[in-house]
């Protein structure tokens, strides 16, 4: 029984994304950021997007392209300190920014991908990040209910994929990618290499293919994926 083939073309798959979509984007800094998928989203120009990503990339790359083209309505993120454009847009009220503690952002995405409604934590108690959140008392301790965080789409960068959508990631390019792949209604993965079925050892698969809807093979990587000159 052959596995389904989910390989597709970049332009076609990004047309699935409508205006107003919520989109999770992989990456922590450059490693794991799906620059080519983002670039196509900028070319197509979908508007009023909610972007969920650990950081907002640095100025002049990745999510910053979407910010500069005015496609982002809201950013759910843990840190935007390396991108002065994002800070300026937030301060001028041109985008809404929701800050989430980094591990809580990861866990809210993870539990969504695990089919759960949320979790209870003491992280943030006594700080501004706990304000307005639902309190839960369990075994005599007070915690905060953190809801699962889902999205319409996930844009993932993988090192290697097979046509069915099994994925592997390289070094610290893993970060949020396997989490967002599980938490979106439609997961689109770009991969540096697409290898034939069976070429990835089943025990080495990091994101199992049933979580992945579409696979796009990248051409030669553009410079933005390379070493950052600061």
């Amino acid at each position, binding site marked *: 029984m052959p596995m389904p083939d989910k390989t597709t073309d970049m332009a076609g798959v990004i047309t699935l994304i409508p205006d107003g979509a919520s989109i999770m984007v992989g990456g922590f800094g450059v490693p794991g950021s799906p620059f080519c998928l983002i670039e196509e989203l900028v070319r197509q120009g979908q508007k009023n997007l909610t972007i969920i990503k650990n950081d907002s990339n640095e100025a002049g790359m990745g999510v910053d392209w979407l910010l500069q083209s005015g496609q982002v309505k809201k950013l759910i993120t843990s840190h935007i*300190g390396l991108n002065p454009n994002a800070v300026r847009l937030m301060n001028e009220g041109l985008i809404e920014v929701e800050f989430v*503690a980094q591990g809580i952002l990861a*866990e809210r995405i993870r539990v969504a991908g695990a089919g759960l409604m949320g979790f209870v934590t003491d992280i943030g108690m006594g700080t501004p990040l706990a304000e307005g959140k639902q309190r839960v008392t369990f075994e005599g301790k007070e915690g905060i209910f953190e809801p699962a965080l889902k999205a319409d789409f996930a844009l993932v960068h993988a090192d290697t994929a097979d046509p069915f959508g099994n994925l592997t990631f390289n*070094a610290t390019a*893993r970060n949020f990618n396997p989490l967002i792949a599980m938490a979106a209604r439609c997961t689109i993965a770009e991969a540096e290499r697409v290898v034939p079925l069976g070429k990835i050892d089943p025990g080495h698969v990091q994101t199992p293919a049933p979580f992945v809807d579409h696979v796009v093979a990248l051409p030669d990587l553009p410079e933005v994926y390379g070493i950052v000159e600061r």
Partner: protein
Amino acid sequence: MALLNAKERMLRRAAKDIEAGMTVNLGIGLPTQVMTYVSKDLPVCLHSENGIAGVGALVTKDKADRNLIDAGGAYISPVPGASYFDSAVSFALVRSGRLDLTLLGAFEVAANGDLANWIIPGRFAAGVGGAIELAQKARKVGVITTHTDKHGNPKILERCTLPLTAINCVDRIYTDMAVCDITSEGLILKEIAEGVSVEDVVNATGADLTIPSAPLPTF
């Protein structure tokens, strides 16, 4: 080695508290520089929240792996025995108490151990990153900071004035003037930088400071 300046001696003093067998996370900025003063032979696991346990030396751009950075974006090498993991696993490690020590920067620290290091309303609000979970859940939390801000105002206060990162979390403060411990009895002066008097430290501290009667070690 040339004579160390006050900042270098502060970093070297903090490095002394990194012990064999520990798993450690060093915050971006000053804390990361502590590694300069840790012996290369000391068996320590350095965690970075972007998904590695086993951070090794920094590498130059011509030798860098584009997929291998620390949480501050510096290109690094892995040590033998290192592992990579996703961001949920990375913070599972932090929240479940596997970090023996974290060293963090600070805008303000209070005598009760409250830490403020992520937001200055109206001036700096770039997001909290991983600081809340590191501060709240590492078994020991050290703060590395200049004793006063650039205007000479104390950064160690009776109560923080800025929004908090975490409450009652800091165990030890390393500054260019002193090492102070935060205990149930309050803030205690433990060590003093060479060339600094107890009176200098007291004057630069915005909280009650207990001065032990025994002579203080210098660093």
